[in-house]
């Protein structure tokens, strides 16, 4: 369960201001964040992930108070429990598909990369139909395939929470459905919570709950 209370956030520069009196998302919920650009959807996603810290208020994931953790602990928490998917995929050009999927295990010493993890990575890749491309550079793949690699990277540590920031924004309709299928499938299989920032209003009826950010600026 994610609990947001009396949250206030502003960037060091500019007049952006986000204020959320209270928001609760239950475990296993699938939530769509919608609202106009600049309404704070991505900011909240970052705050939930512990990438950014609020000026005031509290954010808790389960029984972990993210706001009371130091930077290192938040990173460790994030890499173990939160899977992140970005609109621009954010794959590393110099790594193969497999190495991109394994990245979380290479950049934090609290993660142990072993044979089982590798095997899981391969299975994940095969599950999203890129099993025969794991040794290629990720940059050589199509857009849809790239996002599938990014999704595999997010799923590999078996997170309890999936945060996707417009994951289908750069995809054609076909691939949009495909990627969402994978995310929803994971969430339903593992009981993980899925929060997606999206502008695709024709897809929002797939989510169990929609949070419209206009309400925070009313």
């Amino acid at each position: 369960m994610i609990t947001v209370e009396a949250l206030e956030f502003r960037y060091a520069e500019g007049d952006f201001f986000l204020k959320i009196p209270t928001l609760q998302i239950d475990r296993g919920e699938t939530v769509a964040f919608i609202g106009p650009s600049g309404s704070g959807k991505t900011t909240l996603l970052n705050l939930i992930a512990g990438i950014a810290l609020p000026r005031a208020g509290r954010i808790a994931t389960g029984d972990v108070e993210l706001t009371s953790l130091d930077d290192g602990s938040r990173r460790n928490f994030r890499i173990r429990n939160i899977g992140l998917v970005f609109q621009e995929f954010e794959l590393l050009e110099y790594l193969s598909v497999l190495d991109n999927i394994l990245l979380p295990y290479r950049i934090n010493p609290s993660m142990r990369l072993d044979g089982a993890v590798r095997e899981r990575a391969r299975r994940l890749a095969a599950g999203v139909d890129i099993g025969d491309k794991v040794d290629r550079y990720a940059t050589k793949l199509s857009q849809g395939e790239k996002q599938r690699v990014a999704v595999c990277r997010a799923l590999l540590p078996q997170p309890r929470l999936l945060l996707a920031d417009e994951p289908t924004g750069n995809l054609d309709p076909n691939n949009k459905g495909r990627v969402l299928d994978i995310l929803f499938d994971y969430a339903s299989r593992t009981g993980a919570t899925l929060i997606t920032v999206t502008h695709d209003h024709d897809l929002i009826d797939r989510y169990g709950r929609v949070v419209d950010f206009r309400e925070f600026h009313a």
Partner: protein
Amino acid sequence: MKDSLYLAWRYLAYHRIKTAILITSITLIVFLPVGLRVLVNQSADQLTARAEATPLLVGAKGSPLELVLNSLYFESDIPETMRYAEAIRLDTMGLAQPIPLYVRFTARGYPIVGTTLEYFAFRGLEVASGTSLTMLGDCVLGARVAEQLGVEAGGTVVSSPESVFDIAGVYPLKMSVAGVLAFSDSPDDHAIFVDVKTAWVIEGLVHGHVDLSQAGATTGVLRRDSSVITANASVVQFQEITTDNIDSFHFHGNLSTYPITAIIAVPPDQRSEAILRGRYESPDELSQIVVPVSVMDELLDTILTVQTFVIAAVVVVGLSTLATAILVFLLSLRLRRREIETMVKIGGSRGSIAWVMTSEIVAVLLMGVLLATALTLLTSQFGSSAIRTLIF
């Protein structure tokens, strides 16, 4: 740590051209001044060693440097010649063993060193195959010459005319190769040795021809008085000394007037050396006596001064290259900001991300330094002989 190294390696391998350029720059930055220093020091050591092994050098008055370079390294221009009488005079003084040198002619680009058998003993040169100089017209090849020309004992080498237009003067002499010297890692490897008398044959001072006083020798004879027989230039000038014609080789005039370029003087002790040097101090003296090591030291001082400037310049260039390399790296860090941000967002630890970047720099630096070290080692191994060919 291992994972950071892996990522760094993947990055460098993917950007291999950029990496290669960076490594090359680092290699050059390190190698140029160090390698140059090693090279110069080593060449200096070699030059000095040769000079130190040559106690005294007598030559006609003129440039001492020219005399030393010609007599020790068989390089530079031909110094003023002096008469062979000087060697006889030196011997008569009894103060030093004289070893005459006549370094003037060449054969296929290699210097022909006219000397006596004493030279080989003096330099500690061993005959690796064949024999030492025996008959007039024999030559003994330095190891490198034999290797380069592909000539062995029993073969022949033809001396080069001094100039293409030299028709009346120096006839090419076909010399028979009596032996090949063992490698000595010295200029002797690059020389062709002949008896000084053979060098005079090349010059045309000693020559062979049919006996003009014999009845058969009518073709070349222009006039035959009671005792003076005038012969024209068609009198056969032998271009090869064989067992059949060696008898006809004869010296014209007095041997003591024949030319040599230098005499290595080997005094038995310091006292003799001091007396000998004193003898050549006289202002009327036509010859000079030089201590090769002093001459070389002077030259090397000059070279070292130049070297300091060169190294200073190289270091400045190196520093600016280093600055450029740092700039390249910083720029690439900027370009990789998004990549770093992604790693941070996913949950990469500060340490791990820093290690990836550091590993890349360290790897590039390390490979550059290792390459530079390897190059320096190679230089110290093979560079000196190469530079000797280059310098002279």
